[in-house]
């Protein structure tokens, strides 16, 4: 008689109260992958890459007879426009899909360059030391001492808006954090016995950096890069919202929200969906980053 649970109890749905503790554990103490977040990240990436073939309409195809159409499931909704249309009759869903590309592309390009630049400078500061370390560390402090949007605005004021400049702005505001992280990682690894031994055994500096220092720092860099995706998307959409970021005819979620501001009174969907896209994307990348952090370093997690 090992089977004690009656089959009926097994089949019944667990109550809300029974699920909560499990959800809480999953959210705080678990190192299982956050499947929903990973899935959503994948969805956004697919939209960014194959957007044009998935989207039902072209991103700037205007339907002047069906402007400000509400979502399809509401009373006045119309089927081809699942999430409704904006003030020019452009399909919201198609524009959201097109926006995914800009958001991910700008964030990705900026993080890639900032990551490499910051890593290089951090390596130099940490490994070489001396006056180079002092100069780089001072610069890092100065860059981190200011609210980033202020620096972003000052840069946009100088360079002008537009996609390429936004990427540049994000590189300038992001590199310092990588430099600081890599510098501290290098400092802690450099003094370890096996590095000293490798040095004594005659391994050259470049080889030590490549074989021992970088692999040690790689995990933290990856986590920081993943967490930066969310930050970058929010920065880009904020600038675009202010009219200082991505410029039409390019599509960005922040730009869609800037348009929506004038139609809040009668078209809530033009404001709701781009924002939801931002929140869901940022949350997904953040929790993926948090999960990696927990996996790589269980101590770092509180």
């Amino acid at each position: 008689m090992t089977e004690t649970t009656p089959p009926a109890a097994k089949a019944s749905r667990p109550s809300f109260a029974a699920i909560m503790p499990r959800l809480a554990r999953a959210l705080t103490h678990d190192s299982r992958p956050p499947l929903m977040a990973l899935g959503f990240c994948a969805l956004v990436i697919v939209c960014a890459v194959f957007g044009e073939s998935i989207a039902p309409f072209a991103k700037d195809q205007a339907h002047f007879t069906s402007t400000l159409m509400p979502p399809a499931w509401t009373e006045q909704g119309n089927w081809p426009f699942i999430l409704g249309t904006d003030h020019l009759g452009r399909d919201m869903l198609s524009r959201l899909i097109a926006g995914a590309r800009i958001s991910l592309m700008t964030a990705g390009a900026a993080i890639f360059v900032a990551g490499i630049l910051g890593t290089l400078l951090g390596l130099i500061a940490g490994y070489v030391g001396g006056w180079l370390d002092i100069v780089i560390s001072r610069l890092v402090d100065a860059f981190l001492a200011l609210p980033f949007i202020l620096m972003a605005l000052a840069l946009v004021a100088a360079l002008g808006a537009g996609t390429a400049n936004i990427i540049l702005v994000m590189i300038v505001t992001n590199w310092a954090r990588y430099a600081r992280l890599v510098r501290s990682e290098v400092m802690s690894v450099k003094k370890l016995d096996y590095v000293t031994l490798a040095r004594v055994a005659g391994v050259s500096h470049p080889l030590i950096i490549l074989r021992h220092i970088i692999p040690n720092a790689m995990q933290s860099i990856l986590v920081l890069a993943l967490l930066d995706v969310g930050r970058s998307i929010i920065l880009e959409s904020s600038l675009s919202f202010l009219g200082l970021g991505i410029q039409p005819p390019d599509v960005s979620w922040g730009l869609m929200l800037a348009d929506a501001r004038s139609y809040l009174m009668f078209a809530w969907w033009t404001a709701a969906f781009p924002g939801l896209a931002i929140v869901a994307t940022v949350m997904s990348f953040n929790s993926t980053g948090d999960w990696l952090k927990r996996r790589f370093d269980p101590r770092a997690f509180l």
Partner: protein
Amino acid sequence: MILSRLAQAAVTFLLLTFLVFVLARLTGDPAPLVLSADATLDDFAFFRRQYGLDRNFVLQYLTFLSNLFSLDFGNSFRYRVPALDVVLAGIGPTLKLTGLSMLISGFVGVALGTFAAVSKSRVVDFTVNLVASIGQAVPSFWLGLMMIILFSITFPVFPSSGYGTAAHYVLPAVTLSFFATSSIIRLTRVNMQEALKSDFVHMERVLGLSERRVVLRHALRNASLPIVTYVGLQFGLLLSGAIVTERVFSWPGLGQVIVGAILNRDYPVIQATVLVTAILFMLVNLVVDILVVIMDPRLRS
């Protein structure tokens, strides 16, 4: 320690003045924007001479720097009044908004964080984590738009834009404080959990002090140091957020000033806004550093 902090801030500030000056000059020539379409070449030359744009770069910077110490940022190209006046007109509304948001996020964050630390319920744990991670992901300007739809359009309780009465503060301040609140909740909870595990709390419980007194008077006081530092650090983020939030609610603050100035290439106003904001930011950080020394007897020597 305070002296070295001051020196550090001074160096950062000097670096910043140079950066701001160079960046503003890279923007391009403001003359075509300011002068009317039928301006002659003489008018252009006169405009450049009037604002010192025809002199060499180093000279322009040195003039800029020496004027800076007499608080002279030059005249706004657009409004033809001293740039500092334009900035000072915006600083009041921004500081009121930011200050109020800081108070809200400080009180609500510490209260909810403490509650979450004391409570042993998993549901509370889950909710706090959820709110915190949503708070990190919601851009303040979108939250603002949703607030307007909900509280100004669907249920017209608060005005959606404008400035003046107390009701005008509600939506912008709540919107702006959301991000900071969620991270302060998280930090307070972690620190309180630490403090509640410590020996002196056990001791006090053994001595029979009331739970309320143990938590509020002793544990919270001990956990409050990193929280005060953190709330101070949040000021920079709040200021950043304010720039965008002001746009949503048409709040007549620094955010509106600087965005307008950038769109109009109004150099003097851009420079003045960035520098004034940076000074504010550094001052708050300095005050926080001093406050921590006052609060923590161990740091007093």
